[in-house]
């Protein structure tokens, strides 16, 4: 693990500072992912960005970008709960698209259903204007890697 990432993880656990971790993940920066709200559970935001469009006619966010946003959100969420562990490795990812993702801010929050010694199961929902009307729902398994 790089020194930058180590410092970022320490800041995350001590101060809920997701920014440093996100800054240390180039792909998260590419999509523009940020922490939106700490509330009862962290909510992430991916602000509207023309570079994330997949369907230029609607226009709609690329389905793969929505997948990448949910997967990255789940990994960030898991990092919160873990001690001295490197970035979790994705094992599999299953994504259901419910509505077109319009060119708007998109939000995501996660639920860790099970976290064992080696594997975690995480459910992730994405929405735009109304959390009760999700645009996508996903679940992922991650391998929890010991440093």
């Amino acid at each position, binding site marked *: *693990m*790089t020194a*930058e*990432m180590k410092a970022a993880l320490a800041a995350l656990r001590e101060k809920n500072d997701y920014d440093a971790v996100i800054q*240390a*993940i*180039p*792909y*998260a*920066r*590419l*999509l523009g992912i940020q922490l939106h709200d700490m509330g009862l559970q962290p909510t992430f935001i991916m602000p509207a960005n*023309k*570079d*994330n*469009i*997949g*369907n*230029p*006619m609607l226009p709609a966010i*690329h*389905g*793969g*970008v929505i*997948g*990448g*946003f949910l*997967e*990255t959100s789940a990994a960030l969420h898991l990092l919160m709960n873990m001690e001295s562990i*490197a*970035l979790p*490795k*994705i*094992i*599999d*990812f*299953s*994504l*259901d*698209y419910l509505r*077109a993702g319009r060119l708007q801010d998109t939000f995501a929050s996660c639920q860790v259903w099970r976290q064992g010694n080696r594997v975690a199961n995480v459910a992730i929902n994405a929405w735009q204007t109304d959390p009760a009307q999700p645009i996508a729902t996903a679940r992922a398994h991650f391998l929890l890697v010991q440093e």
Partner: protein
Amino acid sequence: MSQQPTAEELTARASRFVSVLPHCRVLGMQVEYADGEKVILSLPYSEAIIGNASNGVIAGGALTTLMDTACGTAVFNVFHDNEICPTLDLRIDYFKAATPGETLRGEAWVDRVTNNVVFAKGQVVEGPENRIIATCTANFMRIGQHIGGKK
């Protein structure tokens, strides 16, 4: 359609489809080959899509985008009338981390077309020996709309 289009025609058609997708341009994704059986897209390695800065391995999300696009392009190519089919769902199994620096190829094909749903599959491979990095299953809805308006 009386005559099946050639691989050259299908490759050009797939390239036109992918080249107008803004996020695919950001990632530098390109159609390498398409015929009546499958499509092959390439995703060059770049620092922007790294998911783990400590080892340079690219993010799973970039592979999800590669495979959503590859399967979507395979679906686009089985119809000859520009029918649009949105992705219903998609699953990716990550066999191994992609090697940093390697260009990845996303291969996709359509298993079955029904009146309402198109069933597609694919895989992400790297290197001359086509090492499998991930496999993918994606289903698409037929909503009866076409590029340029409802038909």
